[in-house]
């Protein structure tokens, strides 16, 4: 296994973890982290390793499980997206104090942009908050090296370590030469020490002191870590401007300087933003009159530099406070700073002419949309039709795109469809108003963090309809299995945990299952549910139909050939309330028409048309 292969950045992380002897690997999927575990499984199979893998039910569960393995002396890692670390933060903060026996790496993937997240938060700030070291790779190759290094550092200093690859590392592809992988020896051996592992607040103070000493030792190590913290200063030379950069922005600015032939601008790369290698940075700062800091998504290095007069970055207004630092943005920032300092500017990037040209073309806006045949589309149509005046709370997954059908009003965080539904209900009931609320949540999201909110709603007598959109997979992030299936991460059998039983176990009396492809049945069930809500309590409908991508054949066993007839009166209900990509308004025909190559034959649109103009061909 020495030949060069192309790895996805997330594959490089997986490779590095396994090269670092990772024995236990847990994860909850979330863009941009989702491919780490599947890539690890691919390598584990190929190399016949014994590494334990699991899709955990959520990120906190993933971290706790990995932490226990590390407390037992193993090398363990858990992977998640940056907002997943919020869910796991309770565990993270405490784990920092308790420390590890083996190695514990938390991989938390950031999403500057954001491309597929609810925030642009910076994991490096979470690392600072929790007081754990963090490594910030600039490429798949560096992510691989840092993943292995993180496991070693964690074990050496008995402290959890965060690896923070950003989306442009996670979803980059690069040729890498993997070496042979072998299992790390070392059986589980938990040394009982309740004073530490079950520490009371009094001893937590002692642990905090220990953690601070560990961080100082790690900082000293980072000062000398020239493979990841390095600069190209020439001894004795002074520079009017230097650049300090980390992660992806470092890679981008290096490319720009190379293209522009700018050897006059020294660069300090910071691969270990916390604990901050202050001496290394001081040395660089002393050689430069001014310094430009390029990092994302937030300011971290800039805070640590603590020299406001000299430093340009987000805090000084030279770097935009939100949005991704893509190459043309960095080019613009650097050019402006050079001009401001009276230094040679960069070459003219041009581009205004073509931007104006493209703007003037009035190109169609391509907003993301549910796939043709998606069962969620049918569910949203029925919900909107049955309860047009309801507040529609929803959640995180493909089905957030129910927005397009006017059937999603809110999306806060994982599980908030349920908790916001109860919150709305109580807020209105206080005023004597029985406001209808229909909540929608996906199956995987429900297993992730639905039950606590549902228990709360039942206990406090909140009244609403909860529709669990059960497509038998975690679709948005790439079709990972859910606990409902009983198939585990490595494909082996686990025990299937029935959604119905979990819901009943939360104390819900009205639990019905419906196939949303049958729009009429779903609408009458929704009405029945509302009667239960009015008289008795919360009602749960499980709208169950397989995802059309994950289960092509089972989802549409007998495709129906659909056509639109001249009965179409252009009411546009099918376009506005259903919105299948296969249906469009044909200007020439003056009515709705079908794009057969996009249609997957689910036939639901036939039930949607009030004029009966959509028919089986």
């Amino acid at each position, binding site marked *: 296994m020495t030949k*060069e*292969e*192309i790895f*996805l950045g997330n594959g490089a992380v997986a490779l590095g973890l396994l090269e670092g002897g990772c024995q236990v690997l847990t994860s909850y999927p979330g*863009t*941009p982290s*989702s*491919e780490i575990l599947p890539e690890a499984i691919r390598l584990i199979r190929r190399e016949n390793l014994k590494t334990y893998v699991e899709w955990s039910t959520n990120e906190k569960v993933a971290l706790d499980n990995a932490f226990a393995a590390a407390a037992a002396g193993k090398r363990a890692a858990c992977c998640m997206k940056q907002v997943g670390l919020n869910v796991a933060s309770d565990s993270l903060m405490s784990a920092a104090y308790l420390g590890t026996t083996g190695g514990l790496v938390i991989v938390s993937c950031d999403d500057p942009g954001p*491309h*597929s997240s609810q925030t642009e938060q910076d994991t490096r700030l979470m690392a600072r908050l929790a007081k754990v070291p963090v490594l910030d790779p*600039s*490429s798949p190759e560096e992510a691989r090296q840092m993943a292995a290094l993180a496991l070693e550092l964690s074990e050496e200093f008995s402290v959890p370590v965060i690896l923070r690859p950003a989306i*442009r590392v996670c*979803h*980059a*592809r*690069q*040729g890498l030469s993997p070496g042979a992988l072998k299992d790390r020896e070392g059986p589980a051996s938990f040394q009982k020490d309740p004073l530490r592992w079950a520490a009371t607040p009094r001893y937590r103070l002692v642990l905090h002191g220990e953690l601070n000493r560990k961080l100082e030792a790690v900082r000293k190590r980072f000062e000398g870590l020239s493979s990841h913290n390095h600069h190209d200063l020439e001894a004795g030379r002074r520079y009017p401007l230097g650049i300090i950069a980390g992660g*992806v922005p*470092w*890679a*981008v600015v*290096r*490319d*720009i300087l190379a*293209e522009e032939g700018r050897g006059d601008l020294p660069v300090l790369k910071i691969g270990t933003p916390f604990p901050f290698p202050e001496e290394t940075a001081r040395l660089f700062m002393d050689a430069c009159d001014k310094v430009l800091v390029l990092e994302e998504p937030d300011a971290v290095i800039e805070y640590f530099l603590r020299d406001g007069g000299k430093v340009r970055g987000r805090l000084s207004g030279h770097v935009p406070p939100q949005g991704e630092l*893509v*190459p*043309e943005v960095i*080019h613009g920032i650097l050019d402006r700073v050079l001009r401001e300092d009276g230094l040679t500017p960069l070459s003219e*990037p*041009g*581009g205004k*002419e*073509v*931007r104006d*040209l*493209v703007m*003037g*073309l009035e*190109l*169609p806006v*391509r*907003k*993301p*949309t*549910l*796939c043709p045949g998606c069962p969620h589309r049918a569910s949203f149509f029925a919900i909107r039709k049955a309860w047009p005046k309801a507040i529609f709370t929803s959640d995180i997954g*493909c089905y*957030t*795109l129910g927005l397009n059908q006017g059937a999603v009003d809110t999306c806060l965080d994982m599980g908030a469809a349920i908790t916001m539904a109860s919150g709305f209900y109580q807020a209105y009931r206080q005023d004597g108003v029985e406001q209808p609320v229909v909540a929608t949540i996906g199956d995987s999201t429900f297993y992730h963090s639905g039950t606590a909110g549902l228990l709360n709603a039942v206990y406090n007598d909140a009244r609403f309809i909860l529709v669990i959109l059960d497509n038998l997979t975690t679709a*948005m*992030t*790439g079709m990972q299995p859910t606990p409902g299936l009983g198939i585990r991460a490595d494909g082996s059998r686990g025990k299937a945990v029935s959604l119905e039983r979990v819901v009943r176990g939360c104390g819900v009396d009205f639990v019905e299952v419906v196939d949303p492809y049958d729009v009429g049945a779903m609408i009458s069930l929704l009405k029945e549910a509302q009667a239960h809500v009015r008289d008795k309590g919360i009602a749960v409908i499980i709208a169950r139909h397989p995802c059309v991508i994950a289960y092509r054949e089972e989802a549409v066993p007998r495709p129906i050939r659909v056509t639109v007839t001249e009965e179409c009166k252009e009411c546009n209900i099918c376009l506005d309330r259903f919105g299948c*990509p296969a249906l469009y308004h044909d200007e020439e025909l003056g009515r709705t028409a079908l794009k057969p*190559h996009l249609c997957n034959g689910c036939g639901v649109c036939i039930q949607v048309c009030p004029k009966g103009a959509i028919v089986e061909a």
Partner: protein
Amino acid sequence: METINFVLSGLGGQGILFMTKVLAQAALKKGCRVMGAETHGMAQRGGSVVSHLRLGDSKGSLVRTGTAHFLLSLDESEAYRNLPFLAPGGALYANAGPRSFPRGEVRAYLEKKGIRWRAMEATRAAVDLGAPLSSNLALLGFFAGSGEGPMGPRDLEETIEMISPERFRNQNLRVFRAGLESAGGV
């Protein structure tokens, strides 16, 4: 070696990722250093999808606007949307009607910047071969047949053969060859 920059664009579900993978894998076989960037997640659901591929010594995975040597687009509108990536003297390959492409004002810009273009109806070619979702391979064949870039048609064909899933292999190769033929470079 000077970095060669590709930008590939289209809509979610058109197979941009697979197309990028074929180009990257073929370049690697040629001994190029490969770096690329992909779109995953929410944006994949029918939205605009762009992927970047850089062959050479670049450190970053993203192509800067104004520096792409090649823009391959599976959708006409997405070709226009991504025009800012193209460098003067670059080349544009689009899945569009060769007679109507590009629109007048775009044509004037391309001519002024010395950007070459070629269009083929890749979707039609794929549909004709009973593989409506394989327009990506038709356009890839069309690009290969035009004799540009460091990878020749044989390199790409071998790569498609190697990385296609078993059940799509022959179909992928057929569509690729159809694209190759329509470029006039069999």
